[in-house]
């Protein structure tokens, strides 16, 4: 099975600064119609990675492959199969949307007639059918985003790279954009790489997530698996002597870690009921001030990966690069 993205000790320097530091991973499976989320704090190297895959930056070391094609030596083959929606404004001045898409389609290798037909078709698909003869300069921000999405998929690519697709969109437009992205993978079998700083977007659309920090992959999670695991996480705040709480929880099959000042984070396996918490705290003579329980969220995964919160007990201590490299995708 050909991975969508395969990186082997990829390093990229911009000026004197090393942005990507020998990262290796295999992401996705070609033709599977899955979405991979690319997350990371500002400056983590997300955009640099995307731009390197597209051949805009030269790798200073290692290699990168898209759909099995080397990004440097086989860039033409790779780019024929890729659609890219950039983050910033990108269009051809003074052109109507339909003409713009024709040009983009023809540049991607569509014959003239097919490009014209697809231009109309894809503009209706993204909801710009009625505005297709207006020049792009007169479009609102939301319409421009949709036009950018349209140009990325006009040639029916196998892989669509979306860089912050919901930037500047209101709630309704955002929902529509995410719906289109989901349709692209579920109905049309396209692989998606979604680069976003909005965790909710990634959570709604993606099947896998890769978290970058300071030019390295710090976490690679299969969100489907995480959702399936259905583990429950409890946040607990108690008053009293809680020194024996961890041991008491362990006896009941749960695991907990204290964050100080009586605050605890506890993982309950699926077969352990929430009542256990009440029983254990009562047994330890602790007053419960606060108790919330929820499933693991992408936000939690992200914050743990970038080191902003302590790891929840029960998480496998799996080195991120190993997890990514073993093709768990």
């Amino acid at each position, binding site marked *: 099975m050909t991975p969508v993205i395969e990186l082997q000790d990829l390093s990229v320097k911009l000026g004197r600064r090393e942005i990507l530091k020998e990262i290796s991973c295999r992401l996705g499976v070609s033709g599977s119609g899955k979405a991979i989320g690319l997350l990371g704090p500002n400056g983590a190297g997300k955009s640099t990675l995307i*731009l390197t895959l597209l051949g805009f930056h030269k790798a200073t070391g290692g290699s990168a492959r898209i759909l099995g094609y080397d990004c440097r030596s086989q860039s033409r083959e790779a780019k024929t199969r890729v659609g*890219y929606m*950039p983050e910033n404004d990108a*269009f051809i*001045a003074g052109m109507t949307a339909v003409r713009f898409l024709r040009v983009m389609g023809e540049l*991607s290798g*569509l014959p003239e007639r097919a490009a014209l037909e697809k231009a109309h078709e894809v503009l209706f*698909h993204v909801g710009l059918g009625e505005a297709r003869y207006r020049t792009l300069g007169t479009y609102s921000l939301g319409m421009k985003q949709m036009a950018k999405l349209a140009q990325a998929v006009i040639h029916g690519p196998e892989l669509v790279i979306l860089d912050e697709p919901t930037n500047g969109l209101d709630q309704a437009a955002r929902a529509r954009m995410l719906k289109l992205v989901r349709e692209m993978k579920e109905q*049309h079998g*396209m692989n998606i790489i979604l680069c976003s700083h909005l965790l909710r977007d990634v959570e709604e659309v993606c099947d896998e997530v890769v978290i970058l920090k300071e030019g390295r992959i710090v976490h690679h999670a299969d969100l489907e698996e995480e959702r399936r695991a259905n583990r429950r996480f409890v946040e607990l705040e108690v008053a009293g002597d809680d020194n024996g709480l961890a041991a008491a929880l362990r006896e009941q099959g749960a695991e907990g870690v204290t964050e100080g000042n009586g605050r605890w984070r506890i993982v309950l396996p699926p077969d352990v009921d929430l009542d256990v918490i009440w029983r254990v705290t009562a047994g330890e003579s602790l007053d419960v001030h606060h108790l919330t329980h929820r499933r693991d969220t992408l936000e939690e995964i992200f914050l743990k990966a970038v080191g902003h919160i302590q790891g929840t007990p029960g998480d496998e201590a799996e080195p991120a690069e190993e997890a990514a490299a073993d093709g768990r995708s």
Partner: protein
Amino acid sequence: MAVHKRGYQRYEGPRTGLWTRLMVLPRYAWEGLMQQRQIIAIFIAALFWPLACLSFIYLSNHRELLIGMPNEFTAMLDIDGGFFVNFMNVQAAFAVFLATFAGPSLIAPDLANGALSLYFSRPLSRPLYVLSRMLVLAGVLSPVTWVPGVVLFAVQSSLAGWSWTVENWTLGVGVFFGLVLWMAFVALVAMTSSAYVRWRVVSGGLVLGFFFVLTGATELTSAILGTTWPAAFNPTYASNQIWHWMLGIDALEGPNALQCFLTMMALSAFLLYVLDRKLRPIEVIS
């Protein structure tokens, strides 16, 4: 079925080849340029001198029509290297004016609107993008440069006969290559100015300025230093010297054709370097 009722389907049909894709940008650019009044006006104006030259060729080959004309006038109608150099000089000026209006709309809007990232994420490399933009200008400049030049030579050949053609074939080759060289240089200047300055008016001014300022600067330097070598950096002089050599007529005073050719190559290399620095899909601030 109407497109809007059919819904989106992934394209799975055949793909076009490299050369078809290469011609996409020129095709759309030509459509746009042909809608500009200034371009059409210069285009038409640039056809007057070739028509005049055509009538000179006709008169030159029908001397019986000139009976009674002063000898000085009939001597002017000799079709030789000097005649073609005069033709080339006028058309070269029109080529500069055309490039001034056509050039700025080529790259500057792409840079200003971030279109390069869309082009380069497709199977279109930077060299191919430059080539496709060069083709736009080649398409606009050819009808006012080498095409009428070759037509004039062909007409003269047909009127003067086979023996004239055999004796003067180098004129045809010189006209063709001389004007192609000039066209390529002017196109390069126009593209570089379009990539360097995103404001179209300024970019157009820069094309004119390049030729006028270099001419003035080289003449000033020559006068101050009391030497002729700076003239090699004057594109107008340099190309003229090269044409004189190509058409086998007396060289101009100053640097020879080889020196002029090398200087023009050096200027072209510099322009290509600037173009390479500016044509990036993304700007990296290091």
